[in-house]
């Protein structure tokens, strides 16, 4: 193995002499080594769920955050108070607004306006053991009920804004999925009834691909 290592510098000389390479866009040579900028445009690293009580009160924010995109996320547990001041559950309604950020870019970029602008290609789905709603159907163990509170130019739900109503005390999981559904052969992929299709067949039953799928632990108290 040694002989090849000794010859290696000759190779580098040869490479430099023969290739006279130009660094591609976004890259440069420094000390004969190539450096390229990371291209993270269009990615997302952070999901923020903002729950605002309908009757007024402080907004409760919870994050799913993987700023290095290294598969080691920091995930807040969601804790939602109901409207009760005694030993029975009383339903509390919240407005749920979703924010998406890309913290790989410097400064971090807010991706939410991009999704809002192209809402006819996007839809959020709310599923999991804690949820009753369009993408789950009737779930007797649910502790929250989700309903879409916005729509795109075609009158179809988006899910950047939602109404969440507590239905019982307890714990469970809330999964937030953002489906990206660009046109195929010039035909619209985002159509009516997608949440019902997810409830019936899962995400394999609808078109497009996942931009985001994150899961939170949630408790209603």
């Amino acid at each position, binding site marked *: *193995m040694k002989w*090849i*290592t000794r*010859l*290696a510098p*000759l*190779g*580098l000389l*040869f*490479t430099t002499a*023969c*290739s006279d*390479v130009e*660094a*591609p*866009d976004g890259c440069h040579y420094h000390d004969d*080594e*190539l*450096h*390229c*900028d*990371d*291209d*993270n445009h*269009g990615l*997302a690293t*952070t*999901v923020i769920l903002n729950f605002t009580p309908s009757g007024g009160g402080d907004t409760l924010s919870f994050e*799913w955050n*993987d700023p*290095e*995109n*290294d*598969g080691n*996320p920091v995930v807040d547990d969601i804790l939602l108070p109901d409207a009760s001041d005694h030993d029975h559950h009383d339903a509390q309604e919240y407005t749920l607004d979703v924010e998406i950020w890309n913290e790989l870019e410097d400064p971090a970029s807010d991706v939410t306006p*991009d*999704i809002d602008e*192209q809402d006819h*290609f996007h839809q959020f789905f709310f599923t999991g053991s804690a949820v009753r709603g369009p993408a789950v159907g009737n779930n007797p163990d649910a502790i929250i009920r989700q309903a879409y509170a916005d729509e795109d130019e075609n009158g179809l739900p988006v899910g950047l804004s939602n109404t969440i109503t507590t239905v019982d005390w307890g714990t469970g999981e809330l999964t937030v999925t953002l489906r*990206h559904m*660009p*046109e*195929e*052969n*010039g*035909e619209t*992929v985002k159509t009516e009834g997608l949440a019902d299709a997810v409830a019936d*067949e*899962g*995400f*394999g*039953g*609808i*078109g497009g*691909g*996942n*931009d*985001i*799928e*994150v899961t939170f632990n949630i408790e209603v108290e």
Partner: protein
Amino acid sequence: MAACACGCACSLCLTTPCWADPGEDAEDDVLEITVHADDPDVEDIRARTTMDAVDLERRSGDDLADTLAGIAGVRTAGGTADAAKPIIRGHQERRLLVLNDGVRHESQKWGPDHATEVDPFSAGQISVIRGAAGARYGPDAIGGVILVQPPPLRSEVGVGGVTRASFETNGRRPYLAARVDVVPAAAPRLSARVSANVGVGANRSAPDYVLGNTASRTYNLGATLGYTWDAGQVRASWTHHAFTAGVFYGVQNGTPTDFAAQLNAEQPATADLWSSTYDIDRPYQDVTHDMVLVNADLIGEWGTLDLTYAFQLNHRQEFDSVREGISGPQYDFTLRTHSVDALYRHLAVSLPFGELDGGVGVQGTFQENVYRGYALLPNYRSFGGGVFAYERLSLRRIDVEAGARLDGLSRVAFVGDDDFHRHVQRGTLDESTCEVSPAHARCPAAYSAGSVSLGALAHIVPNLLDVKLDLSRASRFPNVDELYLIGSAPSFPVYALGSPDLAVETAWGASLTTGVRHPWVKAEVSAYGQVVDDYIYFSPDLNVSGAPRFDVTIRGTWPRFTYQAVQAMVYGVDGTVSVAPEQSLGVDLRFAAVRAQDRQTQTHLIGTPPDHLTASVVGRLPTVGVLHDTQVRATTELVARQTRTDDHADFAPAPPAYALFGLSVETELGSRTPVRLGVDVHNLLNTSYRDYTSLLRYYADQPGRNIRVRVGVPF
């Protein structure tokens, strides 16, 4: 003795242009007993099949892998784009070597959707050597070698060439190709060639639905200039290959649960939206491959010397499905490769008991890979080199060939700081093995390997029965993706991780081939076996209790797959049998069966082609007027279900067995420069099926019936 380069050592000519007169040595005593000297497939110590110009014309418009699919032991690994990769004796392209005009084809061949960027029309013939051939051709030649050889340059003053055209109904794809050779009267030692071809395809169709976004565009250009004199030839050439292809819409970024759901669906979720169109949408790939080559063949009383310098530029861009407003590719690879090859062949040495041929060679490669895009692969630079020697002793009825080769590779990977920290955090990369700077980590690695081969060809009954035995040791160095890959794989519901401490793969093998040449039976049948130490295998990462590990990303939770070294064993049989090959009615059979497993766990390696048999009945019709060499062929292709799988390592059960029927008719028109016409029907009954070695099987059916009309006009 000048003709020896092409006469008594004909197998060598297949990697270099055979420009010398092959006839002079016919009076040589030794050559008189060297039967079949005009057939390199017979004379090669290894199992070998060559497709000539007529064979290649039958596959007009196909890519390299599909062109070779008619050879026994060769299968294709289809992609989710209109692209395929060859498989030889169960080995995928990583373990194959493609020599294009004698130069190692260098590309991003790790990708399952990355077709080999070699234009079959550039070839005058293509040979496939089945089995390891590392001692002669270098690293990676574990499963086999594909030799793509351009036609010899024109030697007579004048103009000549060929045009080919075809049209395929599935995908409505026209294909046009032309090659022109010129030798000017004013400079008869000069010879020039230009060639070009273009193919455009709309979306392919499965029997029950259109395969959305499988349209493609391919074009190739080439130019060659040669100068020949008494003592040699120099030649310079340039080829350009461009390929743009959509990636099937049905490939979804979904979690394992969603993946399983779409597997069970009758058809892809949005199949009703897809139509036959030539438009290519995101996601798609856009690839160019350029090669500049300068070659000198020198011949003298001292022997022959073949010198080649080549530069290859492979540029691959992949455009993912992204939000509007984001332009440009999400994956951008630029691979530059310089290579130098030198081969010296000594004059044949006449011994009292036979003749000795042989030579020595040296090869050097410098490579630089630049990647920009989402987290996936590092940049790298490498320097590789090899020296080899071989000798062939030709006795009265037996030839014995021995070869040895030593290769080394020194490579430095520049792992981006984000990826480096991801690896370190997971424990997949030892921090101390790299020099860390603010921008990246510089991770060096060096490998070396020795290859040897010992083979014999016995003419048991001259011109009737031959037996070949080849014993070999061959190696493959780990690729950069196998060492440092990190990220969600675009096609599979997994999180993929490289393993930086992988060692060199080493294959020990034996191959026994029997050839029969009789007026009523022509056959070649091989049996082979290999053990591969440190076989690099992409499989699930399990924890100490045997449970799979998972990675959580913002796109979901994924099972972790890593490249792991296993001790593998590969064995099988393949061959062709032609009954009545020259008679008016004959039968052709082609078959292969291969087994691959982990020797320690006895589990089967996924991706191994299932058993298959192709049977054809061929009718050769008499000449009628100007129509001659007319033949009608009815074909049945039987492919078994792959029952030897590993459910833990695969993402879906193997598809059922299938049978496809085909029909073709071809004829030649005229005598001096005959026009060849043909019609081929593939999947005549429009059968719905899925192919175990195709990526598409995870998402949709294979394309249905296809009718190809073709014409070839030499001039």
